[in-house]
């Protein structure tokens, strides 16, 4: 809908405003008259009318009115300028303009194209909401000042934008996979959309290894998704999940993609993450997982992508290979580093390690630290229970 509206306004801010206005109108009208047969089309039409009205108010945009003379015309799905077969994917590529810093490209795209809320984006980037809001404002200011156009990049320019596009899709999935806030752990509409986008991208750029890597990564997550919570919506850890219920077909598809990507050259960060996920998915049990291999892959991942989050995940693999004591030392280094302050998985990982070392009082405290940082109800319940379990009798 935003895609359809931005084609009218040629202005993302204006389009966003029009879309929001359309939702408000929908709430009023549908409550009175019932939901129309095609709610999506209804919303798009209203958003287009709305943007039309907003633009008429702005005389400076009068020159663009010819574009709007047929606001009721059906969606123009053809011709297909950039060979990108989907409105939303096209918008993501448009929004990931290399004149913006990559992080700004990703954040802005998540906000404007994918509709992810600013606090959720801030969590994904481990920064405060106000910092993220300021970054988004700065990026929008540059778009206006430097006149960055909303134009579909040529086929030759797609690879340059690819890394940001992959990150957008990954974070979109991640936001849906473990919703940073709210009642449910999983938001199906976001994970489904992200998976569709990854599949489309794979068709569009079949030779790009990292596209295969991302798709494989999402497929493994998807294969395990149903088992991440129990029937009461409570979070289950990897070792507690029912492996028999994992979708073997998706895992096999992911495995093929990973193997092909690994064979064709040095792996990027998505391929490595997918390889790790695939090893987990193929293991008969948590204990029988190929932890040494996973540790090697994390080492490689950390080398090409030195993120503290990767280092934290690597610490879990360390605990399975070298024991919880060694892993705890690494987690404590990360704790002192400070970049993961506010990242709930740091105290929860630390708590697990302390619990395994029998230091239950400290473990309970660390679980409570994690609890204080989580805004998701399913996670909170899980952590509260862990805190209780770890408490000494």
């Amino acid at each position, binding site marked *: 809908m935003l895609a359809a509206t931005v084609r009218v306004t040629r202005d993302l801010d204006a389009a966003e405003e029009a879309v929001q206005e359309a939702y408000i109108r929908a709430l009023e009208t549908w409550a009175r008259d019932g939901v129309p047969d095609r709610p999506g089309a209804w919303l798009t039409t209203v958003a287009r009318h709305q943007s039309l009205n907003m633009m008429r108010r702005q005389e400076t945009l009068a020159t663009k009115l010819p574009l709007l003379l047929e606001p009721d015309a059906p969606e123009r799905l053809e011709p297909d300028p950039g060979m990108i077969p989907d409105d939303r994917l096209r918008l993501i590529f448009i929004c990931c303009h290399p*004149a913006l810093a990559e992080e700004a490209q990703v954040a802005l795209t998540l906000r404007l194209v994918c509709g992810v809320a600013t606090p959720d984006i801030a969590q994904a980037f481990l920064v405060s909401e106000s910092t993220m809001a300021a970054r988004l404002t700065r990026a929008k200011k540059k778009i206006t*000042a*430097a*006149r*960055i*156009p909303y*134009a579909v990049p040529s086929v030759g320019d797609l690879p340059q934008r690819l890394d940001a596009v992959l990150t957008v899709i990954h974070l979109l999935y991640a936001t849906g996979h473990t919703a940073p806030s709210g009642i449910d752990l999983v938001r199906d509409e976001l994970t489904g959309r992200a998976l569709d986008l990854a599949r489309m991208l794979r068709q569009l750029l079949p030779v790009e290894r990292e596209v295969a890597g991302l798709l494989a990564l999402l497929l493994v997550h998807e294969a395990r998704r149903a088992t991440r919570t129990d029937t009461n919506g409570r979070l289950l850890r990897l070792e507690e999940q029912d492996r028999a219920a994992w979708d073997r077909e998706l895992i096999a598809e992911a495995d093929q993609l990973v193997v092909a990507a690994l064979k064709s050259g040095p792996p990027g960060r998505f391929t490595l993450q997918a390889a790790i996920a695939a090893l987990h998915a193929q293991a008969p049990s948590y204990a029988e997982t190929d932890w040494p291999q996973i540790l090697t892959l994390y080492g490689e991942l950390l080398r090409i992508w030195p993120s503290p989050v990767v280092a934290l995940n690597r610490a879990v693999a360390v605990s399975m290979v070298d024991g919880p004591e060694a892993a705890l030392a690494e987690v404590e280094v990360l704790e002192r580093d400070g970049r993961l302050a506010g990242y709930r998985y740091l105290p929860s990982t630390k708590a697990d390690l302390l619990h395994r070392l029998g230091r239950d009082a400290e473990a309970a405290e660390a679980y409570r630290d994690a609890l204080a940082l989580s805004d998701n109800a399913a996670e909170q319940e899980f952590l509260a229970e862990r805190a209780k379990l770890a408490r000494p009798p």
Partner: protein
Amino acid sequence: MAQYAVLIFEQMTPGWPNDISPEGMQARIELPERIAEQGGRIVAGIAWDEPGTATTIRGDLVTDGPFIETKEALAGAFVLEARDLDHALALAKLAANVHGTVEVRPLIGFEIVEAS
């Protein structure tokens, strides 16, 4: 059309600017034409002498040399009219045939003062 400054930073060599190759010189001379062919326009152009000829004033202090001494120094600039940033970048790439870096920045003001 929007106006952009295109700042050309070049690798400084001891013989600069006299050691610029004839082809490089020719490319510079033809640049306005190339840009016009692609729908843009050069409104003004400036070429600097080598950084060693600069004099810097800071407060009351006058010193020899440029404000910032770098391997890649500002060598020239032009003011460009283009449709949008993508267009401006495409045009600025035509000027980037030197060993160096080109910065494109939108203008908020540009004025040529006529002699009275």
